[in-house]
């Protein structure tokens, strides 16, 4: 209205709008360190003008809404890269433990015991009747078997620990999906009532990010308020206000935990996040190393036994088994390393001779020569073992460089997000100034209108 009171109400609306803008700025400043916070911007809109006679008068300003500055695509990319990072970190941690078992760069592993065993055979060739040297061979054989058993045991223990890891991670996933479902409910309730749910949206994004660390997810913003979350291969985790918890079940054949959703086993379909990384280590990296170990153990046990049985001991008796014989079962050499043990106890029964004469060392030399024969997959035992060390080290090296690259990408994305959604204290300081001045100016208008109204009221006085 082109009247004084009209101006008053415009000024009043301005005060309210600037107050609202000020409150937004204050909120931004307060949340400068809140993780996941997206800065808010007051949306000021000019009110619809009205005609007075033939003149169009403006009717002031109103605070239409408070907008969160968030780049949805960027958030999605951050989620995806977080999944990768989670997977790589978990995988690297587990495979580094495998690497520690075979750290030949520091002399840890099986090369030492294998070399010492063959060296003890070699030493005996110079004096085949010596009981102390024979005993040394049995001792070296014992050490060899014990080292294999220990390596196998450590790998299995690693798998067991990774199992516990999975159990814990699944628990965290369930907690997060439950919380996200609850937030979905709260957000739809608020937005249904026409209110802004920025704080809840921020919180939900934080939870989704945490979920991405644990498992690979795809999130679908169906109608803008409710977030549906599934794994990348399609298993539903959160549907609107319902969360579908995951369960773990122990596989009776292997003792390993399987992950189950609504009754179906989804273990093989999880490819990212910490769970994905741990599963890859538990179900691929560790078993591969164990299989190699078993192949090597089986080859050594059987070849050494066969050669030993071809010889004669100190009394001229034909040689028996040196190690507990290994019989493969189920088409693989499983447990060859775990059951590696020496069965010969009497040093005199070591079959050094090839013809029964006590001074003959030909069978010993044949036993020692096995070191350079293609016993495993067309390779000598030490070459095969070197291959195992290489594969384990290579795995760790690749995971490590991938992780470094991934962290670089995440840093860049985080910087981008900061630029868009982060609070800049300088900018907020300027905003503070703007809205403060605008408020003061509007208040000044009120004062002016007040004085003018007094003049108008006192028109006909004198």
């Amino acid at each position: 209205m082109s009247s004084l009171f009209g101006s008053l109400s415009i000024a009043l609306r301005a005060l309210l709008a600037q107050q609202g803008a000020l409150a937004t700025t204050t909120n931004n400043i307060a949340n400068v360190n809140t993780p996941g916070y997206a800065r808010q911007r007051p949306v000021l809109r000019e009110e619809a003008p009205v005609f007075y006679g033939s003149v169009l008068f403006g009717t002031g300003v109103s605070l239409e809404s408070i907008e969160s500055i968030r780049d949805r695509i960027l958030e999605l990319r951050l989620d995806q890269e977080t999944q990768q990072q989670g997977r790589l970190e978990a995988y690297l941690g587990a495979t580094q433990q495998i690497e520690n078992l075979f750290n030949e760069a520091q002399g840890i592993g099986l090369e030492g015991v294998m070399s010492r065993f063959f060296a003890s055979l070699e030493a005996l060739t110079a004096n085949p009747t010596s009981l102390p040297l024979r005993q040394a061979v049995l001792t070296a054989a014992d050490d060899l078997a014990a080292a294999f058993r220990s390596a196998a045991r450590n790998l299995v223990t690693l798998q067991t620990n990774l199992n516990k890891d999975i159990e814990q991670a699944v628990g965290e996933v369930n907690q997060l999906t439950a919380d996200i479902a609850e937030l979905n409910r709260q957000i739809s309730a608020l937005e249904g009532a026409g209110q802004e749910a920025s704080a809840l949206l921020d919180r939900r994004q934080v939870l989704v990010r945490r979920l991405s660390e644990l498992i690979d997810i795809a999130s679908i913003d169906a109608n803008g308020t409710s977030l549906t979350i599934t794994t990348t291969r399609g298993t539903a985790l959160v549907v609107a206000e319902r969360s579908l918890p995951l369960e773990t079940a122990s596989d009776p054949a292997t003792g390993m935990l399987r992950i189950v959703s609504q009754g179906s086993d989804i273990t093989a379909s999880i490819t990212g996040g910490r769970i994905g990384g741990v599963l890859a280590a538990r179900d691929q990296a560790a078993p591969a190393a164990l299989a190699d170990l078993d192949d090597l153990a089986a080859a050594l046990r059987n070849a050494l036994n066969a050669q030993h049985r071809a010889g004669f001991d100190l009394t001229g008796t034909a040689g028996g088994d040196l190690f507990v014989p290994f019989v493969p079962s189920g088409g693989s050499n499983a447990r060859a390393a775990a059951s590696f043990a020496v069965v010969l106890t009497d040093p005199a029964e070591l079959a050094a001779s090839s013809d029964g004469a006590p001074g003959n060392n030909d069978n010993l030399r044949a036993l020692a020569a096995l070191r350079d024969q293609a016993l495993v997959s067309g390779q000598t035992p030490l070459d095969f073992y070197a291959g195992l060390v290489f594969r384990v080290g290579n795995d760790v090296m690749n995971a490590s460089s991938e992780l470094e690259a991934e962290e670089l990408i995440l840093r860049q994305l985080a910087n981008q997000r900061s630029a868009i959604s982060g609070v800049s204290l300088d900018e907020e300081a300027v905003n503070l100034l703007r809205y403060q001045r605008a408020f003061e100016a509007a208040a000044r208008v009120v004062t002016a209108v007040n004085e003018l109204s007094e003049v108008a009221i006192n028109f006909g006085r004198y």
Partner: protein
Amino acid sequence: MLAALAALRREENEALIEVASGRRLNAPSDDPSAVATLVGNHAGLAEAEQLLANLAAVRGTLQVADSTLNSAVLALTRAITLGVQGANGTLSPENRQALAAEVRGLRDQLLTLANVTFQGNYVFAGTAVTTAPFVADSTSPAAVTYQGNDGVASIEVGEGQSLPVNLPGNRLFTDPAADAFLALDHLITALESSTGIEAATREVEAAFAHLNTQRAFYGTMLNRLDMAEVFISREKFELQRQENALAAADMESAASRLVQAANARQVAMGAAARTTQLSLLDFLK
């Protein structure tokens, strides 16, 4: 910014570990193919060490055999001297008996020498090293029977080569072409009966020549031992050199990386400290 600082700190740590340990390889993931090569390298070194130890052990056996044969040769030389003396027509039967008695003594000495042991094993028994190879046997024409065997034991000396370490006693002392015991027995009989002394003495000479020729085996083997030792030592040296090349840290590069990383981190921290101080709010009253 925190992430960048963390990355710089990581780099600094890695360089520090390399400088402090003097090793470039601390885990297989540092250089997988180099560590795989190291495995073979260590195995090779262990084998070389053992071969060298064996060579030293066998040297003892060979030297004992050689010096024993030296004494045997001296005994036979003495027997020849006695035989030549005995052939002198001016000696009386009693004198010849005395000579025969000394030759008997030499034969007993030879028996003892032929049954010499080293580290509990009979040296001249072939591979039947737990029983004495030569026994006095009145039923045998040589008065001595060989109950060892023909076995020859060998040891590895690297590169798939092997070295025999013994000669069977029968080849040395009771070879059909030049049987030392038989010859001595004949000489004893000849001296006691004062007939055929020259013939018997020539038999002993033949046995002496045979023993000398066979003895060369030990000299040859000891030489081969020396050569093998040199060869394996060189291989060992080469393996150690390779180990250093693969595993040792390149000190200059590691040290300079350490300095660079430390500097970069200091600069980054200084910059971070500065920028966090400035804020417009400080300037607004």
